[in-house]
């Protein structure tokens, strides 16, 4: 057996990084479990219902999308649609240009990671500053986030202190408190200078058109207190039917993601600022982004569109813990990413077709998922799809010869006996790369093929339990 592709990518990461991810993700999971199970009589039921609500939304998007659009318009929000990442970025650029804006402050949004908005805007002469502490550090480092909720889970304080120093944010100091204060002092002036605040949305209520945003740091609140124009980039699957449903989802999101009862700031935004309020956006735009989601909707893996991006499945996943986020080469790592990333590639599915194999199918992701997504089933479907589309699968040993033997009793018996030869062969020298890779870390057990059959044949008759 050879390593899988993800192992090779993981092997390129520093040992420090992998250790940080392992610890960080494990802690998150242990706290979550305690919080959910102590506080609710039937937490599993909560998850199942939430899953059913989102599945209903996903399968009725044709009704909900026009409904939410009408509601937003009635609330005074300007609605845009973007089929691709490029179209979404262009829409943002268009809004900024129309206002003569040049400076954006950004809260954390996964959609803007998908479209690489900040890069795009910078290329077009705009300033686009990440304000979430983790994302800010990733930005000044020219790095990529490695977790959807904890973007710098892979970094330690020394690396952060070094990049702060390099970027003129003070002499080297790796005290987390100092790091945070420095970012606070630097960023608050940036918010106040900015023309546009960009956010995502965790949920959008079809009933009221309310966008719900959750953060702990207060950065999205700052974006919406300091700037005059609010742009929200929203994936088309983010809808919940009614305000009533929000309590259910809010209860699950923070507990699953960061083991909190609620995140510090939970914002409900249904339009530009009220006329009597001096601070905040006079203009509000919502851009509904597809970028591969309709591909997912058309597939037999549409359940993954229920995902509320809590990150629990990453924290609990033994493969994520060992491989860390970057090995997934996608905006969405971990179990959710192993399903979503290949699907969102559309025609380029083969490029990420190895990800669904990066799982032991242990089922832990399904158990923690607040919307009960059957991730292991979806992974199997995608493995199957890769097989059907004849995607080459490096690292998987050829099973053809085995299949042939196993289907012919005589040949099978002969091979069990003949296999003994392997005990006498210098396996380390055999020209079979898969075998050599395996032996590099382990040694083969002694071949005992045929022993069971021999015992079965010679056992004293009559007693079934002998």
């Amino acid at each position: 057996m050879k390593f899988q592709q993800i192992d090779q990518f993981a092997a390129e990461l520093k040992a420090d990084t992998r250790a940080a991810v392992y610890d960080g993700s494990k802690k998150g999971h242990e706290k979550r479990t305690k919080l959910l199970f102590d506080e609710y009589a039937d937490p599993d039921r909560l998850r199942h219902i939430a899953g059913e609500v989102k599945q209903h939304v996903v399968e009725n998007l044709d009704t909900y999308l026009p409904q939410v659009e009408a509601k937003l318009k009635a609330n005074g929000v300007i609605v845009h649609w973007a089929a691709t990442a490029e179209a979404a970025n262009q829409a943002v650029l268009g809004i900024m240009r129309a206002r003569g804006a040049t400076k954006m402050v950004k809260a954390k949004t996964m959609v803007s990671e998908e479209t690489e908005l900040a890069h795009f805007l910078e290329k077009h002469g705009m300033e686009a500053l990440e304000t979430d502490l983790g994302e800010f550090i990733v930005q000044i480092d020219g790095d990529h986030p490695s977790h959807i909720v904890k973007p710098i889970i892979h970094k330690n304080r020394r690396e952060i202190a070094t990049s702060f120093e390099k970027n003129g944010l003070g002499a080297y100091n790796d005290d987390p408190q100092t790091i945070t204060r420095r970012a606070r002092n630097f960023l608050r002036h940036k918010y106040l200078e900015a023309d546009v605040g960009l956010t995502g949305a965790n949920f959008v209520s079809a009933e009221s058109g309310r966008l719900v945003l959750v953060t702990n740091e207060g950065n999205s609140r700052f974006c919406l207190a300091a700037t005059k124009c609010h742009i929200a980039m929203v994936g088309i699957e983010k809808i919940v039917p009614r305000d009533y449903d929000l309590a259910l989802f809010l209860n699950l999101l923070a507990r699953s993601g960061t083991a909190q009862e609620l995140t510090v700031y939970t914002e409900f935004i249904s339009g530009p600022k009220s006329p009597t309020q001096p601070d905040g956006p006079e203009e509000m735009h919502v851009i509904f982004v597809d970028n591969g989601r309709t591909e997912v909707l058309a597939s037999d893996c549409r359940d993954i569109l229920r995902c509320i991006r809590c990150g629990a499945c990453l924290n609990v996943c033994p493969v994520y813990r060992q491989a860390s986020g970057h090995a997934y080469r996608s905006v969405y790592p971990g179990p959710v990413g192993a399903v979503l990333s290949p699907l969102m590639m559309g025609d380029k599915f083969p490029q990420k077709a190895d990800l669904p194999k990066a799982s032991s199918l242990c089922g832990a992701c399904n158990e923690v998922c607040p919307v009960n997504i059957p991730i292991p089933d979806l992974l199997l479907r995608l493995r199957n799809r890769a097989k059907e589309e004849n995607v080459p699968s490096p690292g998987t040993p050829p099973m053809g010869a085995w299949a042939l033997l196993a289907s012919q009793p005589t040949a099978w018996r002969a091979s069990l006996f003949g296999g003994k030869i392997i005990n006498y062969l210098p396996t380390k020298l055999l020209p079979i790369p898969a075998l050599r890779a395996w032996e590099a870390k382990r040694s083969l057990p002694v071949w005992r093929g045929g022993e069971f059959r021999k015992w079965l044949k010679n056992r004293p008759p009559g007693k079934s339990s002998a």
Partner: protein
Amino acid sequence: MSSSDDRESILSRVRGALAPLHERAAMPDYTTELAVMRQMMGSRDLLTVFAERMALANGIVLTEPTALVARLRENKWLHGYCDPVLWPSLAAYFGADFKVETTYDRKRVDDYAFGLTRAAGAIAETGTIVLNDATTSRRLGALTPWVHIAVVERAKIFSDLPEAVAGLGHDNNVIWVTGPSKTADVEGILIEGVHGPGIQIALVV
């Protein structure tokens, strides 16, 4: 392609993707009681639970303006912003050592050590303060100072999240604040006061 072309293409792809489904998943029937924490309230009154829960979120609950003023003075938080509607009823508690402004100047964002604004309500179950545009005199005044004091009316404490969601009302901007602004981004270590207040106080009246 324009946004309206994109609209048509997205909606038609959505319809196309859903067309082969024989049956669409139905909306489950459930009550939000499901999402209420067990044994949180018991027979206790809302203020007691709110104070206990807010303390767990590292917030501070005070019921006397004198206690508030003492705490501000003790920490040398002497310069602040106060909602002009609140100031007449609070001015008498503050001594001459304080400098309190009833207008907020965004050019002097670092001058204000504290901000005093009205809350729209609170949520007992989670120890949360509810702010909205109608009652917050300045969004920035409630956000940028190191200390934020929200004046909460005792009669406006919701019991739990479902009740608070039902009470969102018609304000364009409602925000629930549960404790001070915080992060655990650096090595999972909790640090308070990232972009918003490092100290969150509720003054219940």
